[in-house]
């Protein structure tokens, strides 16, 4: 028996009030996610239940109860409040997947501030533009990442405090830096949680845009309603489950389903702060008897590549439910996982802006390998015509995925970017920017992005951002960035570059430029290949024809080139 039971029955009788009632939402004195994920679970008599099992890259293992979670988030909340932070101030979390990251997430929410999680592998420029856009006043980080913050400090006037959670006293603290060691701080038993309302802002995640700088996706505390119910019905979590979400909280999956969803249900979850290897992952599942595993297609394809022999060496019999997110899950991966683990990975579709799962293969539902599944109850989803934005009646015809606005976890705006936010709505539909088709039974089938955004290993990379950064490399005269197919990551970044006079198109030049982008933006944005060309294809008006380069990489028809000025 699954939590969702009959999908058809749920559709008939659905209301978001199901989640509100279970969470006691209307009567709650606070509608704060920080409270829901810690204090409320303790109030339900589960204070001593394990909330987090954490393992570091050196094998260090730590266990925390829900009461530990409550105390730690209270303590961080009080510390931040003493710094003078007030509600709706932005606090950036810039850490690896260490326990302080998870506790800080709840602590920031408890004071009514907005939490801005950023991927710790981001380079200087990626970090800077996101902090500046959000006018972030505090960043919580680790010693190993503080050098990046120091390098952007002069041009970050809004940043008042840099909190270092593992300061060891070896070097003096610098301007605006403060040491905060949670384990050496007296736990705060009683803490007055800020009385956030359902529509109070909670989380600000950044996502890449096609033509501009990254956009801050603003969510509110009411997102909990969708995140709680989708965790229950899609991830099928039950009280005695041991859950592992492999996503980093620098991205939305790591917060919606790596913090809020499971902890609001009082579920024990595991975190592995270690680089990927098939052996490590299987050992981790076996060691902690993980039952529900939420991962990503890139990881699944890497596990496929590692082969079946290594699976046979591990005891993975604790697993009972597997789900996947981030990019389309290919049919081969679904079939392979069923063969090797005895369980299929079920695809889930959603994005930073939607805040919670929108389309999925539900537990207990017949799976069509390669399909995204069906809309979550309460979500009105369809495929619309690319020009009229009217729903497409004919099964199999490709259009744009579209959702009727109004579900609880939907973004409320892009930070300081109302125009782009409004552009996402057409004919009364929210358009996520993905193309798909619907079959006759209501299953969605993913086709591709409707823009130039590159989805590499489930992370979105803006070609515009990479091209802009490339132009700052001393060797580069012009650049064009597109995706190229990749067996493991689905897509990777490829750059076409013309060089300034005096620079030679050598392998060392390529490596220098790759490393420049890696440090400036992130390893994800680093071109995995740079092709040096004499000229880039342009229209007669001088615009680089990225479309043509993309078509070449993917072996597609290059289409109309009548406006082409010239190419190599």
């Amino acid at each position, binding site marked *: 028996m699954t939590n969702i039971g009959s999908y058809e029955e749920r559709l008939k009788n659905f209301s978001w009030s199901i989640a509100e009632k279970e969470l006691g939402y209307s009567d709650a004195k606070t509608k704060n996610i920080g409270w829901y994920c810690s204090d409320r679970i303790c109030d339900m008599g589960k204070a001593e239940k394990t909330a987090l099992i954490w393992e570091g*890259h*050196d094998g260090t293992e730590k266990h925390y109860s829900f009461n530990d979670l409550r105390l730690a988030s209270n303590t961080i909340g009080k510390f931040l409040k003493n710094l003078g932070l007030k509600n709706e101030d932005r606090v950036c979390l810039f850490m*690896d997947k260490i326990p302080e990251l998870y506790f800080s997430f709840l602590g920031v929410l408890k004071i009514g501030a907005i939490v801005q999680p950023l991927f710790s*592998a981001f380079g200087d420029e990626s970090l800077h533009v996101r902090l500046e856009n959000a006018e972030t006043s505090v960043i919580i980080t680790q*010693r*190993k*990442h503080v*050098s*990046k913050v120091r390098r952007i400090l002069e041009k970050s006037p809004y940043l008042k405090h840099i909190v270092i959670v593992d300061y*060891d006293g*070896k*070097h003096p603290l610098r301007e605006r830096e403060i040491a905060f060691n949670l384990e050496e701080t007296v736990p705060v038993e009683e803490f007055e949680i800020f009385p956030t309302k359902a529509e109070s802002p909670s989380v600000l995640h950044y996502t890449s845009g096609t033509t501009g700088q990254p956009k801050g996706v603003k969510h509110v505390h009411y997102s909990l309603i969708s995140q709680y119910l989708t965790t229950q019905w899609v991830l099928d979590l039950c009280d005695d489950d041991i859950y592992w979400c492999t996503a980093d909280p620098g991205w939305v999956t790591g917060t919606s389903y790596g913090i809020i969803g499971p902890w609001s249900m009082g579920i024990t979850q595991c975190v592995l*702060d*270690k*680089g*990927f*290897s098939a*052996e*490590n992952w299987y050992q981790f599942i076996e060691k902690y008897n993980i039952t529900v595993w939420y991962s990503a297609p890139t990881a699944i394809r*890497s596990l496929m590549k590692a082969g079946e022999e290594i699976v046979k060496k591990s005891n993975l019999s604790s697993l009972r439910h597997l789900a996947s997110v981030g990019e389309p899950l290919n049919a081969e991966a679904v079939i392979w996982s069923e063969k090797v683990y005895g369980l299929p990975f079920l695809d889930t579709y959603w994005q930073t802006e939607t805040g919670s799962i929108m389309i999925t293969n539900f537990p207990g539902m017949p799976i069509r390998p390669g399909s995204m599944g069906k809309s979550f109850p309460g979500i009105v989803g369809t495929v619309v015509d690319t020009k009229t934005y009217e729903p497409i009646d004919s099964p199999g015809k490709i259009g744009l995925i579209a959702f009727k606005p109004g579900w609880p976890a939907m973004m409320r705006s892009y930070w300081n970017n109302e125009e782009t936010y409004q552009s996402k709505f057409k004919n009364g539909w929210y358009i996520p920017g993905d193309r798909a088709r619907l079959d006759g039974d209501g299953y969605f089938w993913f086709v591709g992005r409707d823009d130039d955004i590159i989805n*590499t*290993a489930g992370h979105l990379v803006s070609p515009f951002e990479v091209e802009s950064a490339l132009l700052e490399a001393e060797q580069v005269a012009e650049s064009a960035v597109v995706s190229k197919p990749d067996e493991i990551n689905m897509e990777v970044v490829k750059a076409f570059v013309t060089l300034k006079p005096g620079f030679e198109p050598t*392998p*060392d030049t*390529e*490596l220098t430029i*790759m*490393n420049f982008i*890696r440090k400036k933006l992130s*390893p*994800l944005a*680093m071109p*995995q290949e740079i092709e040096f060309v004499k000229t880039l294809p342009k229209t007669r008006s001088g615009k680089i024809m990225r479309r043509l380069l993309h078509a070449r990489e993917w072996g597609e028809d290059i289409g109309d080139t009548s406006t082409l000025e010239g190419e190599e």
Partner: protein
Amino acid sequence: MSEEMKDIILNYVIEEYLEDEDEEISYDTPLISGGIVDSFSMVSLKRFLENKYNISIPDDRATPEAFDSVTKITVLVDGFLK
């Protein structure tokens, strides 16, 4: 196995990938599983080795396991030089 090669690779890793100036790594420090070099950055490390030693490492040999320490990388590169 060349000690000189190990030092060259170790110094490159320290210079390019180590963020914490106080962190000390040895020939056997886990690089991939230790979170010092991620799977995307591994591509640039592979490219460095190929350029430096004039070799070509096939993708199926450039695994996280083979790149997980300076010692393991040196063994891998050595195999292509023979």
